[in-house]
């Protein structure tokens, strides 16, 4: 009788301890309503940040130039893609293969278009030689928005970039992501903690004055 009661006590204590050790990780992995951390929607074309920002090392602000000038970083206008992709329309391997087979067949080599980029060219209304098609109007791609704040918050990219905040500080290591995922929870507490820390310790060796008033963001 006593033994079974002791067993019960031991078991329940173990269960309690297990719960205590598990709970924090449970709370971390489960989002409260409104927290979109981990959101990773499928995009209209499989654009790879890992390739462009990571492997090729293109600066984030080359495409998201709004981050330096405006409140929104913005998604690049599609003619920014064409700055490179009017020249690069397929992988080097595919282009070499086409050149080789063209040489073998004794014909001029054709432009090779990778199936992924075809989505871009189609949207821009370009034909296989990347000239505007008569029968098609350019239609912008409709990207899924990953990072979204409520309408009563005014986050300004320009202010943060000027102050020396790195893109990765909020967006995570986008240069390693095949598809972009929301890494931070973008909650007010998360914002304010960073503002307070930066005010206390400075940001990358610089003293900054990050607003901690409500009206710094809400107006």
């Amino acid at each position: 009788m006593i033994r079974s009661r002791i067993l019960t006590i031991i078991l329940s204590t173990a269960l309690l301890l297990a719960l205590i050790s598990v709970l924090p990780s449970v709370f971390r992995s489960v989002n409260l309503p409104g927290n979109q951390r981990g959101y990773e929607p499928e995009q209209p074309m499989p654009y790879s940040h890992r390739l462009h920002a990571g492997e090729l090392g293109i600066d984030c602000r080359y495409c998201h130039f709004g981050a330096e000038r405006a409140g929104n970083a913005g998604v690049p206008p599609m003619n920014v893609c064409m700055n490179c992709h009017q020249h690069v329309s397929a992988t080097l391997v595919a282009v070499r293969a086409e050149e080789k087979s063209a040489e073998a067949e004794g014909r001029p080599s054709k432009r090779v278009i990778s199936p992924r980029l075809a989505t871009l060219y189609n949207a821009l209304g370009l034909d296989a030689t990347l000239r505007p098609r008569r029968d098609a109007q350019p239609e912008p791609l409709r990207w899924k928005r990953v990072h979204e704040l409520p309408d009563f918050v005014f986050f300004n990219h320009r202010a943060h970039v000027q102050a020396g905040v790195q893109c990765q500080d909020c967006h995570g290591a986008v240069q390693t992501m095949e598809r972009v995922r929301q890494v931070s929870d973008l909650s007010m507490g998360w914002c304010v903690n960073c503002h307070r820390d930066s005010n206390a310790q400075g940001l990358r060796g610089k003293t900054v004055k990050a607003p901690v008033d409500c009206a710094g963001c809400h107006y």
Partner: protein
Amino acid sequence: MSTTHFDKHTQDSAAAATSLGDGRPHPDTRRDEGMSAVAGTSTWSLGRRAFLKAAGFSVATLTVGCQRPPDTEVIPHVHLDPENTPGVSAWYASVCAACEAGCGTLVRTRDNRPVKLEGNPAHPVSRGGLCAVGQASLLGAYDAQRLRRPSVGGADTTWERLDTMIDVELAKLRERGGVLRILSHTVTSPTLRARIAALMAEHPDAMHVEYDNDSCSALLAAHEQMFGVRVIPGLRFDRARTIVSLNADFLGTWISPVEFAADWAAGRDSDGSASRFSWHCQIEARMSLTGGKADARYALNAAQRFDVLWHIAYGIALRAGDGRIHTPTRQAPLSSEVMERILTQLWEGRGDSLVLCGDNDPDMQRLTVAINDLLDSYGNTLDLARASRQRAGNDRAVLSLARELRDGAVDALLMLDCNPLYDFPQRLGIEHALAKVPLSIALVRMPNESSRRSRVVVPLTHALEEWRDVESHHGLLALAQPTLPPEQGSRSMLETLARWSGSADTALELLRARWRAEVFPGSGLTDFEEFWRETVRTGVYDARPTAATAAMQRVDFTTIGAAASTRPSLEIEVHPSATLLDVRNSGNAWLLELPDPITKVSWDNVACLSVATASSLSVVTGDVLRIEVDGADFALPALVQEGMADNCIAVAAGYGGRATRRFRDAGPSWLYGVPSVNHDGVVGARVSDALLVDATVLRASGVPCRASATGRSEALALAQEYQSLHQPGPAGDGTGAKRPCAQEITIAALASAAAHGDTHAGPHDLSASMWPEHRYEGYHWGMSIDLSACTGCNACVIACQVENNIPVVGKDEVRRNRDLQWMRVDRYYHRDDTGELRMIHQPMMCQHCDHAPCETVCPVLATVHSQEGLNQQVYNRCVGTRYCANNCPYKVRRFNWFDYPRNDEENLVLNPDVTVRMRGVMEKCSFCIQRIEDARIRANAEGRSIADGDVLPACMQSCPTKAIRFGDMNQPDSLVRRASAGPRFYRALEELGVKPSVGYLMNVRNTRTGKTEDSHG
């Protein structure tokens, strides 16, 4: 994990509910069962408890299941627009088209759509300011009711078919020598005028008739008679030391109020020496904004004004030794001391004097010209070389056109963006005559009274969608560039007229051709492209001549006064509405909701009466009067108005048009909602029938009328229900001490205060406080408002409404004091030491108190103090208790009782930098925090701190007289800090000890008494 948790919780509570229900059946449950049994629909009935169970479970499931709101899309541009980075404002110079004044504007666009109109600081007419009507004209660009295709005989047609048809009709007209008449408001665009001339050149009999709603026909005619040129001289209020104005509301609505108000304020240097402060006397029948600011004001009827003018002319002529003015046949209606004072002021200061007359009366205007000539005003305060082109309307031509129309002599009538059926009295017979015109063409943006009776209706572009040029003064040219693509199916007036006069050029090509030929050669530049680019960028090309060359013809004045009319027992005066200006703006919800600056009535026009007149008609405010003028009648609610002359009714024009029918459902729809229109289905009443058709003019003042009470009464939407600054006296008659919230000082008292280095110290000891003082280490934002410069024009109210996405709430909500405008301009009356009635305007918005009473009562900390002295309102925290509004001594907090409807087009006008608030949230002035943040980010990017003048709140920016100053109180040389140092500075209700961040500068009146009266500057 969390799903399980929620499920379990739901099941538990559901089980609890069931057991409770089983154990103790509730009467309600039984009744439910009984009802379903009676209905007998099925054996399974959903009882209340079962329903609650199901509902609770569903809510829990939804909460857990729907974590992610629907995906939002980001749609980029296909091609980068180098001028427009998404999210960054671009500014374009343009010209306001709400009236003919032609204020230069800057259009703020975001993502290629205009969101705000501001005055262009480089333009000499607006100088950065812009009136309420001009700013609100932005809304018209997004009007859902705009015409989208031309129509002939009520049937829609295409532009090609229309143009072909008009070509054929005009050719036919030409062949048989038909009569073409073109009717328009004053045309200020030289290129458009050239196109009209080109169209008329093909029709030898054609005539272009211009008119103005606030007609200056007699004024123009007088100058034509005296100087041989039909112009209005440039008025130099900044130079004038003595201003005597008879019924000219130049600070409110007359000709070019933004320009005049700025000049008038510049001529009254409140902080300098008294010699640089003009003396302004206003003689008028109704209380006007100008009369409220005057140093001396006399309420006189039209016939009395005539006598005063005659006496002034006679008195000045005597002093000048000129015998051309007849001896007045009647006594002056003002006392001899007053007359003597006016005459002395004018004569002693001749060369710096200015006499104005706003009455459309040929004799009065000729007398005014004579007086100004005798006073050497021409060449000094009246500038004929820089003559104004803002008015060209000719009533005589209008009357002869009406005669032709009645006789059926007009074969084609072209109405250019005007509405004669509304604007002219019915007794002119235009409405019936229009049906007889074989080809009647109305060019309009929105359907109106006249377009409904026209055979051909041609849609026009909005002013923000077209290339345009404007010559507001002789030699002062301005260019407007489009900031929006034209509304589908509309075409600019210039292009339409060009097309019909044989040119297929676009408006831009027409403008460039004319500017290259006629303007560019005078510029001294060699490259036209450079000249054009620069003019488009700045929006203005100033080639005004400097020297006046006008010789006045000697005219005999002896006939004047012989036919002076007799004084009617009751007269009516029609004046432009201070909020609408005229019917063209009556489709604008912002302006209809804007309270009249004097009557404080919104969503209505009223018949203003003096106390004596009201009691003789036995009506009180709100009683509906039937007013009869020359056979026509209309009904209006009466309003007892301070400062009205006896036996006079003043009514505002511009209301009651068809365009207002759309506001039936303005404001929220709810159970007790009342339409914003009256029982006629329109807002207010059309009063054009009160215009008197005279021999050569359409008279708007001194018109004999009859009035009687209808016995009906209406609840007016009054934005302010208290009038007097005086506390109720011992007898409860409003003769007690003055409340110190809006303060006034005479120029003599100010001079002595300044000499003694006094700064204002209130009677209260404010050193003791329950609250700890705030310490502002960075910026400390503050505002000061100069009541001496403030004319009460409402420009700031509309600027705030546009900037801060403030919705329109509708007439019924205003009546319930639920208006949402963050700013209001309080209007008070008081009697000064000599017993004179004075009106004073006080802009009132959140005072951003250091010890804010609102902050201490908010249970959820939704309103808190910032480190820079702002009283912040956090919408997402607010739960809507309204404690803060109850505790605010200034009553400046506004509550969103509803979600106010906006249609899709109107959503496009919203400022993307400001949250659109939802129902149940408190809101108020934020000192335009979005502009502060924008300035901060710009300053940080340049590695500096925010400089004085970097932050321009919308109200300050729009103010024509620069009465509002905003800046950092911690900066020793900032404008706002310097303003707070003078003897005029005080804070409203400072005895409460709430320490507001907004201060006021006392209004200054130039009431020279005793010895100082003799000193002239």
